Structures are given as C-alpha cells and as structure tokens.
C-alpha cells in the first residue's frame, strides 16, 4: 500500500534547485476533539519529518496538530550529485515511515 506520494524530478542538472513534494497518508488526529460521549480522542499525529540526500540532512520539520490530515510538505534542495533522497516521517504511538527517491544528476 502506498502510504506516501513523492513528486521529485528523476533527472536534474548539477547545481539546479529542485522541488520535492511529499504527501503522506495519515489522520493527524489533533487530540483536541471529543467523542459524542464526551471522551477526549487521543492525539495521533506525525511529529517530525526529515529528508537526507546521500546521508546528509537537507531538511527537517516539526509538525504540530495544526497540520492538516495527510500532511503535505513541499521543500527545495540543490541537486549536487546522483544518489538517493530518503524521507522519513515519525509520529505518535511509535509511527515511522520511510520512502526513497533516486535522482540522477547530469
């Protein structure tokens, strides 16, 4: 099951700034909602997102309950060399998801 959608260019010129779009399937339950019987719905969100480019960290984000369900994050990076961009989401209740995209730099 594809839990995440990644949109990144497969090829790029050396030194070009590329845009990476990520969408992860997740409820992002805020913890501020209640059931009809008045019980609080426990928080279940993605708390952190990090991107590494050939092992070097290029982007990091802390997410709060105010990020909408199915967190969508877009960021930029410089295409320095061919290799792997790894994206990692971590969250409440031990949640963790990792995706990789390969990029070829010419």
């Amino acid at each position, binding site marked *: 099951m594809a839990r995440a959608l990644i949109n990144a260019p497969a090829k790029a010129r050396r030194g070009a*700034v590329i845009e990476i779009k990520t969408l992860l399937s997740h409820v992002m339950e805020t913890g501020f909602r209640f059931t009809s019987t008045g019980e609080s719905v426990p928080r279940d969100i993605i708390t952190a997102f990090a991107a590494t480019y050939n092992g070097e960290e290029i982007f990091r984000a802390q997410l709060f309950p105010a990020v909408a*369900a199915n*967190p969508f994050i877009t960021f930029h*990076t410089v295409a320095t060399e061919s290799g792997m961009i790894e994206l990692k989401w971590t969250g409440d209740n031990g949640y963790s998801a990792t995706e990789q995209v390969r990029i070829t730099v010419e």
Partner: protein
Amino acid sequence: MSEQDKKATRRDVLKIAGALAAGCAAPWFTASPAAATPAEMQTAVARVIGDARLNVGKVKLDIPPLVENGNTVPCAVTVDSPMTATDHVKAIHVFAEKNPQANVISVQLGPRAGRASIATRIRLRDTQNVLAVAEMSDGSFWSDRVNVLITLGACLEDLI
C-alpha cells in the same frame, strides 16, 4: 390565510430556528477546546526568538485571505534570501493565534535548500492572524502576518 395563522407560522419558524441554534451550539461549547489567545502566540513566538527583535519583511506568507474549510488551508512561506553558506535562512516557523495550540509547523533549512520556500496544508480553527517567522543565519528574525477569514473552522466537524 388569516393574520392569526401568519403569526403562528412565524412563531413556529422562530421556535425551530432557536432549537436548531441551541442544538448546534451546545456541543460546540462543550466539545471545543479553549482557543489560544494572541498572548499565547506571543509566548510561543518568544520561545523561538528569545529577546531578539522581530522585523517585518523579507518573508512572504502565501495563504488565501478567504477560506471556506479551515481543515485544509494551503499555506506557503517564501523567504527572500540568497541561501549561501554565509547568508541563509536557518528556520521557518508558522504560528496561528486562535488555534488551540499556537505552533503550526517549524522547519529547519540550510544552504543546501537552494531556495527558502516551503508549502504545506494547515488547520485553522477560526478567522485569525497567521504569522510566519524566519530565522536568518546572522541571527535576525523576519516575519509576515496575514489575516485569514474562515467560513467553516477546523475542530467544528461532527463529533466522532
């Protein structure tokens, strides 16, 4: 239709309207969490910037001024910076003054980003100001503030 009938009809309509309003309002008051106040947002901002001065400018917070659904509001932040090793944006923080929690998202960037531009989708509880703060590599802080009008706020969806 007699005058009496007309009055009765109007009274009925008002009665129904009142009952509906009460029915909608009751769970809203009990189920909705206390909203943060602008003062709480100031505290959240102060935790990030400390004693530094918050300048206005350089940052562009791109968010629609009128939003129908507060559950997903597109939000983009772009900072005017060359993004070199000596002059770049270190972090971008987004705050909302009337959400239950003022922090929305915080990101860390570096010269490797190439362009200080991020986009995401956020939740907004009510019509309010949204603030974006950028931390530069020289230690200065720049910001942009946008007032967003929300027709249907987040946190008001049906109880589950």
